[in-house]
């Protein structure tokens, strides 16, 4: 079974080999979001296309999620970043990697890039924001509410009637995670990133948002604080843009990673602003 023990936790890992004969292929590490989410969100959307594009693909379940171990505690961003560093060590991936994160996975990617700048070639963050003070306040409220209410029968009935049985089942799964662990109280603790720390993230960052998402306002301030950040907005999509429009995300991600291969920049590959193929 595909498990690796990293930073003391047994993590479920799925890798896809690059479909390419070229010797130096970039490694892309996908990081999923919180709650009911798992590596499946990337495995079934961008995983195979990334491998076909010639990238080595690593997907893993964050601790507490999917098939990874669920210890009662150890869920601060610092722990999560240490898990990823340990995972790359265990997999003997030493060169800089491209991190692709969805929602909280993007927050992890920002923090990892801050903590280990030499290990990151670029970031692609989807519907994400870095761990600022404002993020912490919002997450504390959101996760507190989820922990208090998600397993309440009235809430579950409402979800089931309005969002379907499938979403209700996922809500139960998320509610169980939050009540069985200290995740909800630990995650908002950070460590948080101030303006100086954000500005110090030097790697190229592509931030993708859905035009209908509440998070799209992050696009207004993120590039100001993070000079290396470019923004792409996918029209007509909300927070679920990865699940509902994987093709659009793929068309942004593949050329972005190709443009930021270390060997490409070394030979002076031209910077193209044309994100879409047409």
């Amino acid at each position: 079974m595909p498990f690796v023990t990293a930073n003391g936790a047994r993590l479920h890992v799925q890798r896809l080999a690059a479909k390419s004969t070229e010797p130096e292929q970039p490694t892309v590490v996908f990081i999923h979001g919180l709650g009911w989410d798992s590596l499946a969100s990337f495995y079934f959307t961008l995983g195979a296309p990334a491998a076909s594009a010639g990238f080595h693909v690593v997907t893993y379940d964050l601790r507490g999620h999917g098939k990874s171990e669920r210890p009662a505690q150890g869920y601060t961003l610092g722990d999560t970043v240490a898990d990823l560093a340990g995972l790359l060590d265990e997999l003997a991936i030493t060169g800089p990697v491209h991190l692709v994160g969805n929602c909280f996975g993007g927050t992890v990617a920002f923090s990892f890039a801050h903590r280990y700048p030499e290990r990151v070639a670029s970031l692609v963050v989807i519907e994400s924001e870095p761990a600022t003070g404002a993020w912490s306040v919002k997450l504390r409220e959101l996760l507190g509410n989820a922990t208090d209410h998600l397993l309440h029968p009235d809430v579950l009935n409402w979800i089931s009637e309005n969002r379907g049985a499938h979403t209700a089942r996922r809500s139960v799964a998320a509610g169980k995670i939050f009540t069985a662990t200290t995740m909800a109280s630990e995650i908002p603790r950070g460590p948080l990133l101030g303006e100086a720390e954000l500005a110090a993230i030097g790697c190229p960052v592509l931030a993708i948002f859905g035009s209908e998402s509440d998070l799209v306002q992050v696009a207004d301030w993120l590039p100001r604080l993070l000079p290396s950040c470019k923004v792409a907005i996918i029209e007509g999509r909300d927070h679920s843009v990865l699940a509902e429009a994987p093709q659009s995300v793929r068309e942004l991600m593949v050329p972005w990673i190709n443009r930021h291969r270390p060997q490409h920049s070394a030979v002076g590959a031209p910077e193209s602003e044309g994100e879409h193929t047409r």
Partner: protein
Amino acid sequence: MTESELATVADEQEVLAEIADMLAQVLEDMELTATEVGMADTFHEDLGMESIDLVMLGNLLTERYGDKVNFAEFAAELDLEAIIALTVGDLVTYIVRRLGGEEH
């Protein structure tokens, strides 16, 4: 029924039985047998599986049938609704097609 049609049916039944065994492995607490898993069953709604369980099933499929059967590639061609509505039969058809392609 022609001989080749008969061969296809036989393959499908064989693959269905094998998938039923794999499902029992993935969902250890569910006592599934080949007769209980039907071609029309959906993984999510009928079998109560989550996407992460399908990843595990995908591993077993590749272990059994080789790299020709690549669940990640198969799923990348489908949209979200199609993945949620995916049936055991869809997967059986895909596997039979991939294995058939290998022989020809």
